């Protein structure tokens, strides 16, 4: 089963939930946690896994061949992302705008834009006593996260058996990287906080998740602060609330020390247990 952990708003506790839930579940079944927040992966700060291997991940970018180009400018016209510019006698390529769609390369009448591989980031595989952990890490300055997210998921699907529970720690927001992270998940957990900002971004994330026709539920983190509007919203929309993780200074302290919270705070562990039960039930009904 594949479970994506996402949120509209950043900083609601995706990584806290991902790492704690993965390690909690890993005590009784095979689990791989995958950090797909490739622009700033941070799950490993809490896991301290043993390093297994690293792979360079590439993206394909057109390289302009001046000798064969006839300057028809067809490439510039068809590029949806304005990644190619024609000036005087030159075609300029902007790798950061390129989405590696191959349109310019395939449609160039003189094959003057062959695609070449460029390193965009790295994939690393770690192992702890309880779980496997895989992260994608985009190079600094690189803008296109989607391809690396997709390649990281491919690695996980190839390397791990179907009966391994796969947890995808997704990027925040509701744009392309999030869509890529949750689009083939069986279940999506949306983490939010009980504040007006948390609710606002939760509604966006719910719309996105519904548009993708996903089964999903909400985890309210820092429950007890703010107000009850998130809870009322979930009731009104008939969205299951999987857990309400209490707002606690102690949890924040453990987080800041890079420690797993469920091992130290009993109520936190109870909430992990509630989520585990819900997922188990979901998995049974699905089978």
């Amino acid at each position: 089963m594949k479970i994506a952990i996402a949120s509209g708003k950043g900083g609601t506790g995706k990584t806290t939930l991902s790492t704690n839930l993965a390690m909690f579940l890993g005590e009784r079944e095979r689990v791989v946690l995958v950090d797909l927040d490739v622009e700033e992966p941070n799950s490993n700060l809490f896991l301290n896994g043993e390093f297994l291997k690293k792979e360079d991940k590439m993206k394909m970018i057109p390289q302009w061949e001046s000798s064969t180009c006839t300057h028809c400018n067809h490439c510039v016209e068809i590029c949806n992302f304005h990644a190619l510019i024609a000036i005087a006698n030159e075609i300029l390529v902007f790798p950061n705008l390129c989405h590696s769609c191959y349109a310019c390369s395939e449609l160039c009448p003189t094959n003057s834009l062959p695609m070449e591989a460029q390193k965009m980031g790295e994939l690393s595989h770690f192992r702890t006593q309880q779980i496997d952990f895989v992260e994608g890490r985009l190079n600094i300055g690189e803008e296109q996260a989607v391809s690396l997210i997709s390649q990281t998921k491919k690695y996980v699907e190839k390397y791990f058996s179907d009966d391994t529970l796969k947890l995808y720690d997704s990027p925040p927001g509701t744009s392309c990287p999030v869509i890529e992270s949750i689009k083939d998940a069986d279940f999506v957990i949306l983490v939010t906080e009980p504040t007006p900002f948390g609710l606002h971004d939760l509604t966006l994330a719910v719309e996105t998740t519904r548009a993708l026709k996903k089964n999903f539920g909400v985890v309210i983190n820092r429950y007890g602060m703010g107000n009850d509007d998130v809870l009322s919203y979930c009731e009104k929309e008939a969205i299951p609330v999987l857990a309400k993780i209490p707002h606690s200074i102690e949890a924040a302290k453990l987080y800041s020390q890079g420690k797993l919270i469920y091992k130290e705070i009993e109520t936190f562990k109870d909430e992990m247990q509630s989520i585990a039960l819900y997922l188990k039930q979901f998995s049974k009904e699905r089978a």
Partner: protein
Amino acid sequence: MKIAFTTKEPTWDSMMEARFGRAEYVVLYDEESGDITIHNNADIAAQEHGAGPKMAQAMADLKADVIITGNGPGENAHAVLSKMGTTIFVGAGEISVSDAYKAYQENRLEKF
């Protein structure tokens, strides 16, 4: 000299637009012939990426020697424009096109 202004409306009487890539129009004034050409960039509102390079491409197609704008181009567009040798003046985002032209003639604009 062909001088390009980033503008809000497709006329010489328009106010300037401070943004480069996301300006809706370019008013191009050819000092030699006195001709005014309008470039419509309004479809940029629907596009998320690459506004700067798209505008730089338009400037290349218009063969502008000088660009007068407000905030100035971003990194991608600037790379194209410097390759073309276009001179860019900024700080004219909040005035009318004719005032911007006057300021340019009197050398009161800041070079980018």
